[in-house]
């Protein structure tokens, strides 16, 4: 697990969440920008998941691998599901769905960091 990447992902997800909330506040449906941003976030999360798996295979990381794997899998699943579910709603509530994902990802990546560093 790479700390700077994790922090970048947390910040980026929060930016997406705030952008989504703004879109909802402005009463607009999902735009291309949000979708592309969500795609980039997913790529970043997949890269991070790759490092987590590689690290675990290489004997790195914490004792509590099950929880770490659970969170890693969760972060990878959430953006596509959010995109699918948000695009289907052609109103201001589409981006609101993306905002939920945008706030969930930082929490999960933060927990992954804690577990990886053995804090929790």
């Amino acid at each position, binding site marked *: 697990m790479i700390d700077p990447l994790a922090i970048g992902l947390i910040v980026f997800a929060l930016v997406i969440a705030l952008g989504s909330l703004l879109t909802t506040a402005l*009463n*607009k*449906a*999902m735009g291309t920008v949000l979708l592309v941003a969500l795609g980039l976030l997913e790529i970043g999360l997949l890269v991070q998941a790759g490092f987590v798996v590689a690290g675990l295979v290489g004997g790195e990381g914490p004792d509590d691998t*099950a*929880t770490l794997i*659970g*969170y890693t*899998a*969760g972060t990878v*699943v*959430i953006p596509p*599901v*959010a995109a699918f*579910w*948000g*695009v*289907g*709603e*052609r*109103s*201001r*509530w*589409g981006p*609101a*769905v993306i*905002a*939920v*994902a945008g706030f*969930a990802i930082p929490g*999960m990546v933060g927990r992954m960091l804690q577990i990886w560093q053995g804090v929790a």
Partner: protein
Amino acid sequence: MSERAGEKDAAVEARAGAGDGASAAGHGVGSGPGRVLVAVYGVFALAAGARAAVQIARQFDEAPLAYALSAFAAAVYLLLAVALGRGMRRLALAACGIELAGVLVVGTLSLVYPEAFPDATVWSGFGSGYVYIPVVLPLLGLYWLSRRK
């Protein structure tokens, strides 16, 4: 989906929004703001479910009641995500009632008998470990379901 459709919905939405935010474009309990509820329930089902699965698999004996309740909460969240998403209003209403009762009972028990909960559940302390979202969520759900007949 064309941009025009989006604009149309946005226009309907704007008119509905003049009254209040809850009556939105679209139909059924799983559209409009209901989508957001489905998303939140989905995330909670995933988070609580994964956590309960890990805990039950490796350390069930440490806090059997807490882990069983976490698994039950996860099941209720999953049921709600599906029921709302598929527009099953009555099922969603019943599940919301169970959810509210669960978070209130478990929240109170966890404060009165902390020794019965050596490890936290999603509903411990009325969801204090999850910024109290678990206690607000069923109220939002019931409010939403009562608005969308």
